[in-house]
């Protein structure tokens, strides 16, 4: 029988609108506050933003980033926290790691808490790797002896090697991130809170991180893990909670909750999601713009995964192109790139030797990819429209929208995430050298 490691009861956090940095670019000046204080003498300068301030000002100016969040986590459980951007996941983690106070409700955590909300917090560019390891470790709550004991292990994991005595400002981004993660990964709290650390680093390092997280989970420690990476969530977590608009809307086995998240289109970022017209106003266009991409829609044939693209499945992309006059173009392409911008798929009309006729005004064109040989993960759709193979380029969008490729079989995901391309293969003993 496991003990309860984390318990929250009706946890809530409210923000005054304009108080969070996301929504307010400029901080209020003292004079603004003093004027406000004169207008409303009962709101003291001291209490601005305090728990009581919102009540007196009326409920209109507050938003609830988190509301009535209650859950219980047993020792050794690995809980995935998923939801759209701004749903309240990070607020929850911030409260649990005591960075910010809740406005109401309470939480109880049994054991030492380690939070990894951002890799490399407190790294100072002018200090050497060694000095930063100590600094970062103590920020996370380790004492110097503990760090000294693990120091070699940390350096080994990071792969920074001889650069350990070089100021970190001379490090590449990769080295920086690797060292920071290494420190955090070797800190061993009973309860570990992790937010999106996998969003950084190269594929190789991400794999190493996932493996390390696997170890942590298997060692019986309690983990709260936030990620948009459904593959990582499915691989690491036994249970998930889905947060939307500050409330827990689902709590259960990972497979059920992630399926619901994907199916309901929660996975879409602001401007992405299957079977949905994605307007391309706010993305970066290059080219003359005489004919340009106005919007796109993509999807697969499978409703059980919410029409997301899936490995070895088909993909349809429909494009809305607006043109200033009728035009025949030789090169219309949809590309699928990885996160580094490497083009993995280039479906270009040039390769088929066909040209496309655009009407004046709007033309809709559809692309059908029969089989998408991509492993689960997040990719990026790019668009290209040109007279022929080169000049003039009418429109070029390197990143139009993200494309989430999911796993249909729900098989052991760890084995499928390495490499980008899916293929069919078998192994057998070779009788003689070829």
């Amino acid at each position, binding site marked *: 029988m496991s003990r309860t490691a984390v318990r929250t009861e009706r946890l809530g956090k409210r923000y005054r609108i304009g108080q969070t940095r996301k929504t307010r670019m400029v901080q209020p*000046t003292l004079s603004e506050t003093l004027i406000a204080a004169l207008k409303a003498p009962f709101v003291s300068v001291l209490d601005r933003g305090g728990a009581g301030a919102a009540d007196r000002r009326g409920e209109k100016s507050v938003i609830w980033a988190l509301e009535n969040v209650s859950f219980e986590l047993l020792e050794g459980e690995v809980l995935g926290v998923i939801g759209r951007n701004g749903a309240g996941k990070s607020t929850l983690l911030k409260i649990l790691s005591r960075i910010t106070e809740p406005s109401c409700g309470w*939480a109880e955590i049994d054991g030492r808490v380690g939070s990894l909300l951002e890799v490399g917090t407190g790294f100072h560019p002018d200090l050497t790797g060694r000095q930063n390891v100590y600094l970062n470790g103590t920020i996370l709550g380790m004492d110097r002896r503990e760090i000294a004991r693990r120091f070699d292990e940390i350096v080994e994991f990071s792969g920074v090697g001889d650069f350990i005595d070089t100021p970190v400002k001379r490090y590449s981004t990769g080295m920086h991130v690797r060292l920071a993660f290494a420190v955090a990964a070797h800190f061993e709290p009973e309860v570990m809170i992790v937010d999106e650390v996998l969003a950084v680093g190269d594929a190789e390092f991400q794999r190493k991180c996932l493996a390390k997280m696997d170890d942590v989970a298997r060692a019986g420690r309690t983990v709260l893990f936030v990620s948009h990476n459904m593959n990582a969530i499915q691989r690491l977590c036994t249970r998930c909670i889905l947060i939307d608009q500050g409330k827990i809307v689902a709590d259960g086995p990972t497979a059920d909750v992630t399926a619901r998240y994907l199916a309901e289109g929660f996975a879409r970022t602001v401007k992405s999601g299957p079977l949905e017209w994605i307007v391309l106003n706010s993305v970066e266009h290059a080219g003359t713009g005489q004919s340009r991409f106005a919007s796109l829609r993509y999807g697969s044939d499978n409703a059980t995964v919410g029409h997301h693209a899936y490995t070895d499945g088909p993909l349809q992309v429909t494009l809305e192109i607006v043109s200033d006059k009728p035009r025949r173009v030789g090169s219309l392409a949809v590309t699928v790139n990885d996160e580094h911008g490497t083009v993995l798929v280039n479906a270009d009309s040039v390769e088929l030797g066909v040209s496309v006729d655009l009407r004046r005004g709007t033309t809709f064109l559809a692309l059908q990819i029969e089989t998408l040989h991509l492993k689960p993960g997040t990719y990026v759709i790019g668009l290209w429209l040109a007279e022929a193979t080169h000049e003039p380029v009418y429109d070029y969008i390197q990143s139009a929208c993200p494309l989430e490729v999911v796993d249909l079989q729900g098989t052991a995901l760890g084995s499928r995430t390495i490499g980008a391309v899916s293929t069919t293969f078998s192994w057998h003993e070779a009788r003689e050298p070829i």
Partner: protein
Amino acid sequence: MIRPSRGLRGINARELWAFRWLILTLTARHIQVRYAQTLLGIGWAVVQPVISVAIFTVVFARFARIPSDGKPYQVFALAALVPWTYISSAVSTASGSLSASSAMVTKVYFPRLALPISYIFSSLIDFVIGLALLLSMMFWFRIAPAASSVVAVPFLVLAMMLTATGVSCTLAAFDVEYRDVRHVVPFLLQAWMYASPIVYPMSLVPDKFRQLYALNPMAGIIEAFRAVLLGTTAVDWRALAVSVAVSLALCVFGLMVFRYRERVFADVV
């Protein structure tokens, strides 16, 4: 247990102790970073007071003919500049410490007091170097410190640190939300400097105003510092008592304000 807090909160000394390594490491970081990529390195801690003393000597001793209680003006000024440089460096760095480390404040939990406190400690390095400089200058001018200074100096240093803590914590707590503070600090320090017996002796202040003058905690502390080290005057015990009491009160006030505001730091920084 995590729950909303209300009203004033005390200092969680046990937690601060648990994070003593962090405070130490931060202190070391400030010292290392301060003189990183400079040619003179720690030498700046010597050059700055020497130049200030040179300027003061020309302007205040030569031109303005300000008395220096019978000691060479250079030593007289330096003896006050050493504690003053500490206050000025501690207050200017610690008051902006939270907003300067906003990434840390919003991403990790640790007792927030660790940030200003680490600057209160790291600024001591300048004080120690300044003190060494002062002692060598005293040796040069054949001025021997009073025997009591072995006890008195640590006591005065403590009072000086309490003052710096009180002022810095108050300013830091507001700087988190109102960046106006960083514009106020230089003026505040300048005004404070001239309100303290640094370029002039306290003996210039009329007797009946001494107690009032000593409400500036640095007045009593600096004058006592000079009195025990240089033997300029007898220690004005009443003024010193007033100053130390004020510095204690300031420290408590600063810590209370800091703790009161602490709950919103991560949300507004």
